[in-house]
């Protein structure tokens, strides 16, 4: 046993100094981490979910399966790159104009009408090797219990993964809410302020409806909402739409929905009403055209074939066989 040395009398002070330095360093790092948004902040590329609020869009803090849109509401979906988790600057590039989209769908008793606008976003934001189509909109007639997810499924084919909406109508083809390290090039649109600065999860989880109004699951009580609109219109060939004209819905015979694979049912072409002046804020970027479709837009089925699965299964079988042989090698 060593006897107490004289240094011991001095050492607690030194040790305390060491501890103090440690605490300062910890605090400095904590402050550094707490500082929001560093230069190399990450951004997400995903389909964001928006709710029309008359004049503009509100970023939905809920997943589409948790919301039951009311009759006459407008739902928006926009694909793009967002540097935060509140969908800043990602709202659909069209006015949430219910009257225009649902002009030709008559209201019925016991059926709600919900307008859906789907905006695949800018070409700059597209994944490598893919290009976004144009905007399309649809007036969905659905039972009152239909959720936002049901409404969406009747407007486009949906690819989900782990509760997130990954692709609409086959765009993007494979990826799902990827994280990008590089800051996206800021377009004029992405600098516009976020309509809702509330913290919300980046991808929209399609969770259980949280507002069950005393009835059963929508899929049990009612079949999927079916589109009732039989006529389809296409965008007018106007080259330079004015900023105040959000929805160009001139009636033409032929329907050209944006992504391929769409199959709008033919019908009696009907002239839609004239575009009403909108109260949308002036933006520098021209509004893209919106085509109103009558049936769900589906993307090309681009899943991998069963060949890889067969090869993989064979490999697993071979290794398992080797394992069984090894097991028998040593008598127990």
């Amino acid at each position, binding site marked *: 046993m060593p006897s107490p040395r004289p240094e011991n009398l001095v050492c607690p002070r030194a040790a305390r100094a060491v501890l103090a330095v440690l605490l300062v360093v910890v605090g400095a790092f904590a402050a550094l981490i707490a500082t929001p948004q560093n230069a190399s902040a*990450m951004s997400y590329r995903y389909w964001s979910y928006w709710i029309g609020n008359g004049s503009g869009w509100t970023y939905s803090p809920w997943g589409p399966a948790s919301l039951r849109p009311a009759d006459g509401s407008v739902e928006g979906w926009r694909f793009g790159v967002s540097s935060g988790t509140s969908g800043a600057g990602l709202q659909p590039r069209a006015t949430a104009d219910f009257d225009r989209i649902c002009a030709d769908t008559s209201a019925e008793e016991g059926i709600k009408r919900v307008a859906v606008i789907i905006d695949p976003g800018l070409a700059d934001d597209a994944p490598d090797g893919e290009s976004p189509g144009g905007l399309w909109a649809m007036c969905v007639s659905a039972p009152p219990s239909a959720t936002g997810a049901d409404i969406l499924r009747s407007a486009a084919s*949906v690819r989900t993964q782990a509760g997130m909406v990954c692709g609409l109508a086959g765009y993007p083809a494979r990826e799902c809410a990827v994280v990008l390290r590089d800051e996206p090039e800021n377009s004029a649109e992405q600098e516009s302020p976020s309509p809702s600065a509330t913290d919300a999860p980046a991808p929209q989880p399609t969770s259980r409806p949280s507002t069950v109004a005393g009835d059963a*699951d929508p899929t049990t009580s009612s079949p999927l909402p079916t589109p009732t609109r039989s006529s389809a219109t296409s965008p007018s060939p106007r080259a330079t739409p004015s900023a105040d004209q959000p929805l160009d819905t001139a009636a033409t015979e032929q329907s050209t929905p944006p992504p391929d694979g769409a199959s709008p049912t033919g019908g009696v072409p009907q002239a839609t009403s004239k575009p009403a002046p909108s109260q949308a804020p002036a933006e520098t970027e021209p509004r893209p055209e919106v085509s109103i479709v009558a049936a769900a837009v589906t993307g090309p089925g681009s899943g991998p074939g069963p060949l890889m699965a067969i090869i993989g*299964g064979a490999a697993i079988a071979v290794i398992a066989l080797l394992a069984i042989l090894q097991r028998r090698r040593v008598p127990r």
Partner: protein
Amino acid sequence: MTLTRPEPRRTITPSVATSVVKPASAGVVWRPLARWLHPGAWWAWALGLAVAASRTTNPLLLGLIIAVAALVVYARRPRAPWGRTFSAFLVLGVIIIAIRIIVQMLLGIPIGTTVLFTLPTIGLPDVFAGIQIGGPVTGEEILAGAYEGLRLATILACIGAANSLASPARLLASVPAALYEAGVAVVIAVTFAPQLISDVRRVRAARRLRGRPVRGLRGITASVMPVLEGALDRSVNLAAAMDSRGYGRRASRTRVERWVSAGALLGALTFGVIGTYAVLDASVPTVVGVTVLSIAIAAGLIGMRVAGRRTARTRYRPDPWAFPEWLTATCGLLPALVFIGVGIVGSTGLATSVDPAEWPELPLLPTIAVLCAMFPAWLAPEPPDRSAS
């Protein structure tokens, strides 16, 4: 009283183990001389595979990982009792997949549109508005449940592989000196658990011979006391025996050492928490997270080292960490690195689409990495008790 089971060793030095080869009778087969591989190497290999499995829901990759783990286990497990635990983990995995699918069917989020059948819905009060029991069961839902269950089963299979490959006593023998006392406590607990069972049997047999009830509440309550008494007796005896052999003695430490070890361990804990958060939070630059985490690891190592000085013991026949250990650990950690890297790059293949249901892919890099984990089945030395046959 022996706390750990003595295991036969054939190899004297690691250099001999790696260099000496013995020709088999039929033809010349080169293989490393039988010796116990360091248990840490097996655990590194298995945990690497488990991390890789946790990053994917691709059933092909998960199946490959299970098959590779099984192959290595059956090729290199010892004949000791713990060597037979792997199949139990596989059975547990099957049960977990079944439970996962059933839970998904009863409570899960509705995925997809392919309704197979509809279960009766149980109404819950409004408090549980987000929860629904029963309802329609879709094929996509069952597929998603099966994939996630398979992932969990694969992780379990990896843990099971480590359990049956690495000797628990040897693993405890190589814990850091700072954790020496905890290691001793675990060894005692592990050694006494079987003795407790034999105690219970003995007491029950004695009661049966005396014509007393051994079943039911009375039988259990009456046999608890003698069993506890025996355990207490044994622990007092063991404590006396250990005390007389010098267990529990500590080398004296200066005040500085105490302060440094406490401060470093505390700092390691704090930095570890902050660093883990920084690494997981996408809005924090990666550099900061990695830096803080490495500071935490460094502080932890210093703290362990300083704290370990209080035990002035040398290790008895420490397991060598030589080339086979490096090889085994690398073969296991490679899949973990590849899977994490591929996940960060964001290329597809690790996740299999459930809605719409698609065939799983076989991504090239992760597949090769998983196949690399197979090498220890041939390149790791055989355990001595196995090659003796």
